[in-house]
């Protein structure tokens, strides 16, 4: 009997610990990222351009004041941009920076952020400064949503660039495993991929877009 009660207890406790649920992506972001360098060769931060999928763009712009139908000016989108930036803080701007293996803290974006709307696609532009400029041999910037609610993907062409980087620094980037699905190219992550994940791993991190700078 006590064994049974223990089993029930274990079931309850493990359920209580089950914690975060994993949503499937509801928002798709196609991004371009720029690394900003100070004259002394240290990195001061990154600049993101995030384009949302058209379904989410339609949802996010719903009910916003507009002068011309189908057109949103930067000013008309300013309140939404503020909501975006404020909300992003809770998610650490989905940007995780490591310098020579050490985590680098980020500051909140300055007020120069904005949204634009072109061809039913909403794009968020913002700067994300590091708390302190970073000079590192190996800099790693990962962009992902740990809950996979937002799916990030580097743009097809020139997704990553540097501004004023020292000549000896080499820039590389790495796309996450494919998690896009379309009618024509049904590239689906296999069962094997998911089985290869151990439970302790951070799921979202497996879908990280990585930027690596080596200044060796």
């Amino acid at each position, binding site marked *: *009997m006590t*064994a*049974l*009660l223990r*089993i*029930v*207890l*274990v*079931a*309850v406790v*493990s*359920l*209580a*610990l*089950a*914690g*975060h*649920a*994993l*949503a*499937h*992506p*509801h928002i*798709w*972001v196609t991004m371009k990222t720029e690394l900003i360098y100070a004259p002394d060769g240290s990195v001061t931060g990154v600049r993101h351009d*995030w384009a*949302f999928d058209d*379904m*989410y763009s*339609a*949802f*996010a*712009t*719903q*009910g916003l004041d507009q002068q011309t139908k189908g057109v949103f000016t930067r000013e008309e989108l300013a309140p*939404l941009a503020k*909501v975006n930036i404020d*909300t992003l803080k809770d998610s650490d701007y989905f940007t995780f920076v490591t310098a020579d293996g050490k985590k680098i803290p980020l500051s909140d974006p300055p007020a120069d952020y904005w949204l634009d709307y072109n061809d039913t696609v909403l794009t*968020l532009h913002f700067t994300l400064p590091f708390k302190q400029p970073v000079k590192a041999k190996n800099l790693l910037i990962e962009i992902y949503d740990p*809950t*996979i*609610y*937002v799916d990030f993907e580097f743009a097809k062409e020139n997704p990553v660039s540097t501004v004023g980087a020292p000549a000896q620094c080499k820039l590389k980037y790495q796309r996450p495993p494919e998690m*896009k*699905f*379309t009618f024509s190219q*049904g590239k*689906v992550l296999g*069962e094997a*991929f*998911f*089985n290869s*994940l*151990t*439970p*302790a*791993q*951070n*799921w*979202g991190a497996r879908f990280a877009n990585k930027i690596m700078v080596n200044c060796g």
Partner: protein
Amino acid sequence: MAIEARHTSLPLRRAAVAAAALGILLSAGAFDFALADPFGVSQGSPPPEFGGFAGWILAEQSMFYQMLSGTIRSAKSNGSAVYALLGISFVYGVFHAAGPGHGKAVISSYLVANHETWRRGIVLSAASAVLQSLTAILIVAVAALLLNATAKMMDDTVNVIETVSYIFIILIGARLLWVKGRAFTKLLWTETQEHPRDHRHDHEHDHRHAHHDHEEEDASAWGHAHALEPQELAGPRGWRRGLTAVVSVGLRPCSGAIIVLVFALTQGLFWIGIASTFMMGLGTAITVASIAMLAVGARGIAAKIARAKPGRGLLFLRGLETAAAALVMIFGFLLLTGYMMSEKLMGI
């Protein structure tokens, strides 16, 4: 678990298996993968074998969700795309409900704790899925169509509804826990009193045909446990209680449905969005009902085994119900505090 069970007698071992099965079923909704551990203790809580199946579910629903926008767009010019959309919506609903989400976890626990019947289990889980579709449609129709509200306002509305829904779940769980916990401790007390036990009635059978006039006799047969008994549930009052559970779970709309509805609205195809949402609801209803049926079935097996052991078996059954009741409340708290995430709307 297996080692524990080996030391117990055969019927109890089977009961243990049933309990384990029940645990797995109840966890179906809550066992997602260890992301950042909410309690900071980290390192492996859920069993790894969930990864494969759950990962597959995740990939499938992801795919179908992405198909939705394209199909809505083509439905604008091509009428036959509407049928494709309805089909995709339905399949998306089936997979989406199989993935993480609090709905089926709460409903399954509720059904086990409350000793509900198969029929009622189906009706309750289906009703909650349909209600979910209705709230999504209602929110978008009123907020976006009539008031031209912004996405932020809709998000705020959903947040309020969500909070109310979670508080409801906590209250339902607390009430169940009070009733079931009392029955359990009373029974535990009588068990430990070692009084002669010769009343070996066929309880389960009794209850299936129970009427209100049996209440007295029955209550004493269950070791003076005046708990929420099946005969009480069978009446209209029981239905009303069940509806409270349905409302508390179904109140919170699916964020995917809201995004799809608003998108359809901007494409000038709101009615297609509504049809799609109902198909999602239908798919969700089927999955949630099936999972609820598994939970009810597992409880039935546990009850059958418990009957073979009049004293301790009943105690075990009551313990199971108490645990399930506690689970409903725990889910409510986890949801309210954000440890068990459901879905957000304004992800960014």
